[in-house]
């Protein structure tokens, strides 16, 4: 019975909740997550519809509708801004990695490539071209164990809340599995629960 009501709730979740959850997840996750393209497009259609209604309504109702529209736009703006910020942190890595590349929207991918280009151009103009040719690489790997290209820290600690029962889950290889029930809250390393996050079984808080 429990799992039936769980799946019922999930299919009934509206785009606004999906985007809001995506927004909070994005703000808490160390790396970039899947782009909620469908939710955004649906919401913008609603916004369009709602905006057209505004002109035919009395002032008080119009104000409320406008507020609704403004708040949705704010959410979308903030979501996109958060993603851009995260993209800038590890632009080169995301562009070169196939999995991450697929998580960006086309516009974001163009942005990431453009960003890498202007950064490199700036470095070259400022001092790289004054260095001997052998030293001009911007993607050396394994110099004293360090990579020039920065990766997101997937070992960062995160708080997560369970959305649907997971049952027994192996947090740590050396210890017993722990039961994850709906609305439980855990703090753990991101890498351990990232698959659960992708499947929507947990959300970050």
């Amino acid at each position, binding site marked *: 019975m429990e799992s039936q009501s769980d799946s019922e709730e999930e299919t009934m979740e509206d785009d606004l909740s999906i985007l809001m959850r995506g927004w909070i997840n994005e703000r808490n996750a160390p790396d970039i997550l899947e782009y909620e393209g469908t939710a*955004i*497009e649906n919401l*913008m259609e609603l*916004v*369009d519809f709602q*905006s057209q209604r505004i002109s035919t309504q009395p002032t008080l109702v119009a*104000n409320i509708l*406008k*507020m609704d529209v*403004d*708040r949705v*736009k*704010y*959410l*979308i*703006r*903030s979501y*996109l*801004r958060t993603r*851009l910020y995260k993209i*800038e942190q590890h632009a080169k890595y995301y562009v070169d990695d196939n999995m991450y590349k697929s998580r960006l929207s086309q*516009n*974001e991918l*163009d*942005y990431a490539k*453009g*960003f890498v280009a*202007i*950064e490199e*151009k*700036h*470095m070259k*103009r*400022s*001092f790289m071209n*004054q*260095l*001997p040719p*052998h*030293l001009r*690489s911007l993607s*050396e790997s*394994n*110099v*004293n164990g360090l990579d020039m290209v920065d990766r997101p820290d997937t070992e960062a600690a995160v708080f997560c809340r369970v959305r649907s029962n997971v049952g027994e889950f192996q947090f740590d290889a050396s210890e017993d599995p722990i039961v994850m029930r709906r609305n439980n809250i855990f703090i753990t390393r991101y890498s351990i629960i990232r698959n659960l996050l992708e499947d929507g079984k947990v959300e970050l808080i």
Partner: protein
Amino acid sequence: MLGDEAFRLAKDAKDISESHIPVYNEEQVRLVTQETRYLWTRIEEMIASLNTTDSQDTSLNMLSQGSVSYRNLQSKDQPMLDSEMGGMDSMGPTQMERENVNGQTSLYMLTVGRNKRCLLAYHHRRMEFIRSLLWTLHLAPSLVPPSVSARLSPEEQNFAREYARLNSTYRDAVEEQLCPTDSLDWTASGELPPRDIFIEVRVVRDCGEIVTESGVVNLQAGTQHYLRRSDIEHLLTIGYLEHIPR
């Protein structure tokens, strides 16, 4: 001492705070690149003194990729001469000379690597500052106060313009895709979701006259107004107007 110039650059980078950036230290950057070029020339010379000219380029390539330890700089064809002293030069470098050169080269290579890191870090931190500054100014490079832009190098000013352009291209593309007949109000507040329709504001800097939904308003410095948020939000977010909470 080796690496002092890079250290000074690093200290300069440390002085960058949320609201303050020191003047672009062109002189210091020049000194670091100069030291790096000099060291690299010395490294090339020292390798030449050990190797035959054929393997010289390979060694340099392997060095700059960091994939080779400094011991392997020695050409493997050269015979190892255990107890040679200075007088028998014509048979190649002595073991002691090799070790000498290895030590020197190691030191210089490490310094070169560190110089490069410091240069990159310095420029990177300044770019971060520029980016976050632009975001507080609606990504309009023209709104950067002259006192700040005077502290940026010409390349940095160029970077600021290119960054702004990159973002406006992105925004246009997004709006094109999502709401061709509407806008996403990019200049509205990025911090908080809107809560009030109308807000009380005080004018901090002269904004001249603006058109609101209820007519024309003259925003002179020092005056207070009760206005619709969406009309003046863009002035609020860049600090020309000040919100007066009730």
